């Protein structure tokens, strides 16, 4: 009996924590699955960075990084300048780099308040011994652009956001 009471106490306590957490951190965030399709190109795997851009054109935050080898990070110049200044923690949103022809789905979280407010999603790409593309894909974060394939310029073939 005592045991049961103890378990239910812990259960209730845990429930409070979960509810509390979801209110504080996730309430204002919207999750999307972000599909990144690469073109076929010759060379090493690409590093790709997805960021949220403020209406004034400056970086708001990093949403996803494909590429774990930190020694290439500074090659992604524009993003790197922001990333160093902002001192963001990106461990949780970093995955492996991506090869030509492949497609990857990553989860991104954007503040609900940024949708339809002239914020943009920017995708930068870079390939070892080749080039760095600071605006491979760029599109407005609007309801219209959800579930729509947005074409890229160099290494990225297309990007698509799908409600998660």
């Amino acid at each position, binding site marked *: 009996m005592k045991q049961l009471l103890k378990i239910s106490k812990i259960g209730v306590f845990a429930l409070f924590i979960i509810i509390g957490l979801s209110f504080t951190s996730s309430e204002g965030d919207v*999750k999307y*699955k972000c*599909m990144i*399709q*690469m*073109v*076929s*190109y*010759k060379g090493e795997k690409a590093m790709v960075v997805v960021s949220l851009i403020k209406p004034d054109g400056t970086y708001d935050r990093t949403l996803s990084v494909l590429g*774990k*080898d930190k*020694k290439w990070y500074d090659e992604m110049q524009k993003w790197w300048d922001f990333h160093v200044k902002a001192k963001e923690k990106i461990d949780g949103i970093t*995955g*492996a780099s991506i090869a*030509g*022809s*492949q*497609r*990857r*789905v*990553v*989860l991104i979280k954007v503040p609900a308040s940024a949708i339809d407010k002239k914020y943009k999603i920017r995708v930068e790409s870079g390939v070892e*011994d080749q080039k760095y593309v600071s605006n491979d894909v760029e599109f407005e974060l609007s309801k219209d652009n959800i579930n729509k394939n947005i074409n890229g310029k160099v290494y990225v*073939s297309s990007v*698509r956001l*799908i409600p*998660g």
Partner: protein
Amino acid sequence: MIRSFWRWSHLILAIVASTVLIAASISGIILSVEPIQNNSRTTFHANWNDVTLQQTIDSLKSHYFEITSIERDVNGFYVADVITEDGDQFVFQFDPSTGKKSGKVEQQSDFYSWMTSFHRSLFLDTTGRFLEGVTAVLLFFIALSGIVLVIQRTRSFKALYDKVEKTINVQYFHIVFGRLAFLPIIVVALTGGYLFLKRFELVKVSEPQRLEVDFEKPQKKLGSYSFSKVKIGTIQRVEFPLFEDESEYYTIFTKDKTLAVDQFKHQILDQEKLPSTTVLSNLSLDLHTGRKNSIWSIILGLSAISILYFIYSGFKITLLKMRGKTKNKFAYNESNIVILFGSETGNTRYFAKLIYENLVKVGNKVYLTELNNYQPSDKIQHLIVLTATYGTGDAPTSANKFIQKWTTQPLTHSFHYSIVGFGSLAYPDFCNYAVQLEELFAKQTNANQLLPLVKIHNQSYHSLKTWALDWQKASEITLQLPVSFETKKLPTNQFEVIYRESITYNDQTTFILRLKAKQKINFKSGDLLAVYPPKDPYKRNYSIGKVSDDELTISVKLDEYGICSNYLHAIEIGQTIEAAIENNKNFHYQSSKSAIFIGNGTGMGPFLGMIAENKQHKEAHLYWGGRNSIAYSLYEDSIQKYKESQLLNTVNIALSRETDEKVYVGDLIQRDGEKILQLLKNGGIIYICGSLAMEQSVLEILDQVARKYANKPLNHFQKKGLVKMDCY
């Protein structure tokens, strides 16, 4: 000419490439550990490869809400990229039969990533990659030219993987490791070279094109793709449809093609074969890095270690060859003595140079050159020919034109000649080329044979000195070779003389000394005791018989003019001598095998120790030859004791001066041939110690006996290391 082309390419390429190769080998050795570590960090079962694609998907779906992709990583492990119902994403290694996590996806550690980039480009970016690539190509040609040399040496492909004949140690191991590592090195070089060519787009590599299904076009009829039949092991990567709509389909990458498969009916919507270059470069990466197979990566690591050894041994061999180079003091056409040599490894050249220097020193006009540089000259009174034999009976590179030159332009005036052949008794055609030259000269009446052909086994310097003495006597020209050309002093120990016994008969004195080491040292019967007489830089070697842990016995024949034997003979019990132990591992006793001991004279020395070590009472027979029973009396007590304690089965003594009937040790071998061969066939070992003359006659008789009773030449047993010799 052709052979020297290969030799020069082998050497020049080796010098150029060695620097880069050292860097690449060391980093390669370190990198070869990575696949082994990766494999040890995770569980993997080969039968996972047989799970079907459908089972794999079902098992993952039972744990996770959505799968975005399944992939085989570079090490061959299965990796799933999934999303949970709560909207969390996970990437992990998994077991396709249960869908459960089997390991973490590890990022290449900073250390290995650093090492990889060093291995690829030496931190010199494009320049480094270019250097590495060119080196890979060079490595291929070095390995190739090297193996051509080995084939030419052994004359046939079959022999390529036979046992190598013993020559000098570095060269021996250069060849042995070369044969072993040849294939993996060729693989590393070819794949490395290919990756380099691909990187610099020197070979056309077409990238696989992305499959994009065009739904507007009429659909091709390609049949359906059976998820329940395809094994997961044949698949490289599967990208899953994102949502339920016909426009979203599976993209499946196999080793050789890419397929687009409808998500509902599993119809193949489109497919494309991968360009063969993609398949080839993936294979190259697998083979070059060993990432798919730990065993292969161990082999790669060992090959990288062997490359380091080849660099060391290759240069060492070259230095050995070069040390014989010399400048002549006199012109060819004013020289009375001409020394012609045919050298394969540089040793013969070195000996020829030694003779040259000592003849010049006492005021002779001497010219030293390769056999190929022979020219007729009226001034030649003495021709000395020293030559090795290449492979199974050909002229060495530096002598391959001599016979032709001599036949067209021989010396026509009267002259003296002496031929010395160098070789190894381990080869069936011992000194064959020297024999050919002897026959060539013998045809000419103006050519006077000063000394019969001398064959020297394993570059025995002692034998060369014996020849020099004979030549001096016959030509009446002073030729005194240094007592020993090895002046480097070995670390010595003090030995106390604890017993001596001497016998003299007809002015011939032989004695045995028993010595006790004053420090703790390691040695075995058959090792050599290098004795340094006071005030003499040269050492003399005596074969050791080990009596106990710190006691040894040597057997010495007194030479009237010998500095060392006189010194040893004059020593009293209680005095100490300075000497070093020289390891002579080719003449060590193996107590686990039965033994035939064959010797003459002081050659009994090491046997006195070896027989005492036969504690396992293996079958053992002694054959010894001496002048008379007085000579034998020196050893009689010990041998009798050994026989009584059953360390020896039979004792066979041949006395050549005892009665009218002269018996030599060879006669006894002939008599017991069948028994000896039986022992040899059962893995028994023959030990021969004594004079070279005895050695040569005993080997000849053993060869006859072997052909008679085993249908094989003695060489067959020599190659197996069953005939051990220490003769002088």
